[in-house]
């Protein structure tokens, strides 16, 4: 595709190129891509882009997708004010 600067992670505005460059340089896991680029780290909790990150990681590493969920889900899965979450 002509435009490598297409945004993959809408929340953190991380581009296709940034993720691919990171993978070329580090050949790393989804988790490391997340930490390095902030993709899937934003407000939506990675619901919108986690599978793109996984797809690109699988593509660059030439490893099949694992049964385990790659980017661990973390609470809260809906952003909440701290007070609501903590209960008291």
């Amino acid at each position, binding site marked *: *595709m002509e*435009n490598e600067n297409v*945004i993959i992670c*809408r929340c953190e505005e991380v581009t296709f190129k940034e993720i*691919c460059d990171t993978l070329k340089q580090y050949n790393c896991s989804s988790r490391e891509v997340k930490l390095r680029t902030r993709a899937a780290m934003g407000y939506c909790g990675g619901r919108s882009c986690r599978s793109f990150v996984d797809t690109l990681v699988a593509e660059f590493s030439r490893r099949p997708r694992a049964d*385990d969920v790659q980017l661990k889900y973390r*609470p809260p899965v*809906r952003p909440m004010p701290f007070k609501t979450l903590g209960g008291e």
Partner: protein
Amino acid sequence: MIDCLIVGAGPAGLSAAIACAENGLSTMVLDEFMKPGGRLLGQLHEEPNGIWWNGIDEAEKLYQRAKALSISFHLETSVCHLEKVDGKYWTLHTDKGKFSGKNLLIATGAAEQSLPIPGWTLPGVMSIGAAQVMANVHRVKPGHRGIVIGVNVLSAAIARELLLAGVNLEGIVLPPRYLLTKGQSEPKDVFQSLLHMVHLAPSHLMKIGGKMALKSSFIRKMAVGTYPKKGFKVWGMPIKLKQTVTEIIGKENVEGVKVASVDSSGNIIEGSEEILPVDFVCISGGLYPLAELVSLAGCPFKYIPSLGGHVPVHDHNMQTPVEGLYVAGNVTGIESAKVAMAQGHLAGLSISSQKNKVSDGEALQNARESVVSTRTNALIHFHPDILDGRRRLYG
């Protein structure tokens, strides 16, 4: 304490709640949407007998049955975390406080998979499901004139619904070809997947297409592997298998799309670019199980592409390896609403049989069979290998 907490008031959650309550369990349903029904609410399909499956009516029927059984509902309530307390009962954390129950059924359905396309963060670009909900549930058109990107069962079904609602559509076209659109951007692959559906069950495509729309001549052409260069029309709307959107343009809102013709491998034909004025764009890349809460509950997963990706491990009674945790509906794999209902019913019976300590073998057996037959006869198959995917889970 509540016997059964259910997250998700879609067809699966509602059907499960009814089965639980009918068997004497105190039941509570939570959902973040303002109306019960989940994604069923947006659905409008013509059945082979010509009768319309109206999701709003179906949801209302389920909801009324549930209300009559005194099931308690918490709508507009988002579940953001959960925990198992003392290894005995579940506590859900929500934006409206905490709720506890002995058993937990997660029926959170599916989420849409997108296709990143240059310009897709502009206001006016939305998922195909967003347009469905806007038109059929909220009764507002997504815009004055739009285009759909991504040729698949869901986009075809929803495009038809948009036409019914009086929405103007340019047509359905392919996404640009790159790593993240593999299999969805090459005309020959997309054509193969349509063809596969025809071979699998010619009637399925016919039904989706509506009896009037997809003429048998088209099916015949498809079957011998020749397809019209320009695409073909369904309900008067072109499905352009050889056109792609390379960019969505606009400053504050969508103003148009840049389209180009592609060869059968998805390579852009030089000089074919043009700009089409539209004020909205729908993207359709498929669905995946929304299983985040199941994951937080500690359930293991399996990666099964024909079911939409990562699905929680569960047995044929919808029970997961985590004690007291059950799943039903699209969270277990992408299928149509009727399958979700059958699965919900089964899950509800399964939970009840644990609690009542009577293993009502026959009822469970019937419910399991009903899931299988509903699946086999489903009008919409989101993936040709669903049965195989299910075998990988249940053996």
